């Protein structure tokens, strides 16, 4: 019927929209609070009147957030850098990296809290481990792009290490540095969110402000956080980075009051806690053991894993399409093709705020007035990711060729610019698919029934064995989505580039 809509990109998009609509029918998007707007009004008033007087708490929150981010990203980047040259040569290394980055920072934190409590070690490892996996992959991709002519001119017999540092690394150093900056921005967001599981960062203070209704203080905290993120390029100098790492180390060490490092906890975690209960208590591997292990697995699978997977996929697919819609709505406000300097500045401020606020914090805020359903999660995920991709697509639209007789306004949007950026838009969106799913899973901790909900409950019940099994399942689900995303991008021949999205 509609011959012109037969392009593969359009067919794929419509398929995803159809699937999301179907998911929306199954999803729980009820508003459960009695009077959502009264709380909303109080919150808006609070946010419009930021109160910077609680300077002790604000300073403490920002300092700790930055310190954990700097340390986590520094360790992650160093390990990623060490692994990167071997990344393309060892398949097991690639799998290991895919696995550790498929587990969200919050889940890593929940694991390490079992061993080290809410201590600096927990916070730093929770960021450093997944970031090492991501950095190894992206640094390896950047190294692949290096111009090899310089390497070929080296005298025969030059060692590989010397060749790497002299001829290969200098060519791509600037890209690596840029990417690491971008990682630091992500690290600040991760660090902020770790506060929600008990570390002394922004999320911790935000949660306590919210629970007491101190919205003006919460507003001041978020404004400071945006300023820190927006000014990274001014305060973080590569030459000073070692000073920052040193300073961050001092900050977390001095203010640390929780660490009682006990080797026994670590041993117990690995030797006992993580093993399924039937294995732990087994005396002999008889038929009773197998049937109890079967029961354990079946109960876990049917009552937790399966509903968790179902809700996670449901929410992911809705949020993915929501992100797409908001991206197409947002990108013109930062595009030179549609708005002048004033309009674009307003657009940029809006997008910076939306993409600097982690999904988790957005969802937490929306949840306060809509109650725990999928609705706040959908809005939070779509808003945050739509702002990120909208920014990238808007920037891309500025580079397009211009036609002197081009149409204007909505005609320009629908006929000229959107069709031209659509491929790039889909590439960014499918890159983001896996990220959206990672976030969807952890939003469960807020009480939405995704996998994170069951993981959090298992940990609260001190059933670490179940929590570990569910985290494993979550990671595998992420790997599956990553594979799907790659195959779709390949099929649609979408240009792939290092993920600096």
């Amino acid at each position, binding site marked *: 019927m*509609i*011959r*012109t809509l037969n392009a593969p990109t359009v067919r794929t998009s419509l398929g995803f929209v159809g699937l999301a609509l179907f998911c929306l029918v199954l999803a729980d998007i009820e508003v459960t609070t009695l009077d959502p707007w009264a709380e909303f009004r109080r919150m808006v008033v609070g946010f419009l009147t930021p109160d910077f007087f609680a300077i002790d708490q604000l300073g403490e929150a920002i300092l700790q957030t930055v310190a954990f981010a700097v340390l986590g990203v520094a360790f992650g980047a160093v390990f990623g850098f060490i692994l990167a040259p071997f990344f393309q040569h060892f398949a097991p290394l690639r799998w290991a990296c895919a696995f550790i980055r498929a587990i969200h920072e919050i889940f890593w934190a929940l694991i390490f809290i079992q061993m080290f409590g809410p201590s600096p070690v927990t916070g730093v490892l929770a960021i450093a481990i997944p970031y090492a996996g991501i950095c190894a992959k992206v640094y390896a991709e950047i190294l692949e792009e290096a111009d090899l002519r310089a390497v070929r001119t080296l005298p025969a017999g030059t060692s590989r290490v010397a060749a790497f540092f002299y001829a290969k690394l200098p060519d791509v150093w600037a890209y690596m540095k840029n990417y690491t900056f971008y990682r630091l921005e992500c690290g600040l967001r991760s660090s902020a969110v770790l506060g929600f599981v008990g570390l002394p960062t922004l999320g911790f203070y935000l949660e306590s402000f919210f629970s007491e209704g101190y919205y003006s203080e919460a507003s001041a905290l978020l404004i400071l956080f945006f300023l820190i993120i927006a000014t990274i390029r001014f305060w973080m100098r590569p030459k000073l980075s070692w000073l920052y790492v040193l300073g961050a180390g001092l900050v977390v060490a001095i203010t640390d009051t929780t660490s009682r490092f006990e080797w026994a906890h670590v041993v117990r975690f690995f030797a006992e806690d993580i093993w399924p209960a039937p294995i732990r208590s087994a005396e002999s591997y008889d038929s009773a053991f197998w049937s109890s292990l079967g029961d354990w697995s079946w109960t876990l699978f049917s009552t937790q894993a399966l509903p968790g997977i179902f809700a996670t996929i449901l929410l992911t697919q809705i949020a993915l399409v929501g992100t797409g819609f908001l991206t197409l709505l947002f990108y013109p406000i930062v595009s030179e093709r549609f708005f002048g300097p004033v309009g674009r500045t307003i657009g940029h401020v809006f997008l910076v705020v939306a993409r600097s606020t982690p999904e988790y914090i957005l969802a937490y805020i929306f949840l306060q007035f809509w109650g725990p359903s999928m609705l706040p999660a959908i809005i939070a995920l779509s808003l945050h990711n739509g702002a990120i991709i909208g920014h990238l697509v808007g920037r891309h639209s500025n580079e397009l060729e211009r*036609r*002197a*007789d081009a*149409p204007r306004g909505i005609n320009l949007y*629908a*006929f000229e610019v959107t069709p031209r950026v659509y*491929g790039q838009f889909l590439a960014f969106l499918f890159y983001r698919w896996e990220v959206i799913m990672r976030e969807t899973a952890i939003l469960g901790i807020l009480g939405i029934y995704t996998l994170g909900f069951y993981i959090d409950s298992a940990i609260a019940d001190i059933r670490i064995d179940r929590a570990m099994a569910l985290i494993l399942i979550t990671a595998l689900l992420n790997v599956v989505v990553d594979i799907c995303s790659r195959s779709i991008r390949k099929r649609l021949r979408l240009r792939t580039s290092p993920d600096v999205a």
Partner: protein
Amino acid sequence: MFDLRDATVSYDGNVVLDGISLRIGLGERVALVGRSGVGKSTLLNLLFEQRRETAALVPQDPGLVRSLSVFHNVFMGRLSLNSVGYNLLNLVWPRKSEVDAVRDVLVSLELEEKLFEPAGELSGGQQQRTSVARALFRDGDALLADEPVSSVDEHQSRAVLASINAVYETTVLAMHDVDLALAYCTRIVGLDGGKIVLDAPADRMTRADLMPLYKGETPGA
């Protein structure tokens, strides 16, 4: 229709057009000739700015949206004449009347078979003809074209120029092919060194009269 007075344009300190005055009346068919880099495109764009609401333009770069079909690229010529809702409807579901109207334009350019193919899959010559089709479909009061047949073969060039003349009374074409300029235009304007060095009716000119323009000599001097 066009009235340019003492227009001077320079890029980065290089003077491209130096005090050019040019009047073009209704029904004139003007060929802008001269060596490449002499400022024909700049002059053409200046003229287009004078009537951008009503004139049709064939830019040097076809400026097609590669992911959209030939139909849509041609339909774009009339976006400003329709309501936004109607345009969006046609983006998703082309109306039969519009498809027929676009097909009529494509027939004269021998492109009707490509109606629903993505513009990105066409050859260079086909893309250029699509760009011409867009300007023909625009149905403005004048047509300005920057080398409209540069990537089209001799036989098709004549068909394209004949179609342009069949639709538009007033045309301004930047051309490097002197024979085609003489055959399809009524007035020849020669540019050199940022100035108009020749302005005469086409029927009084021959190929030989124009050759000096391409050698950097002032014709008739």
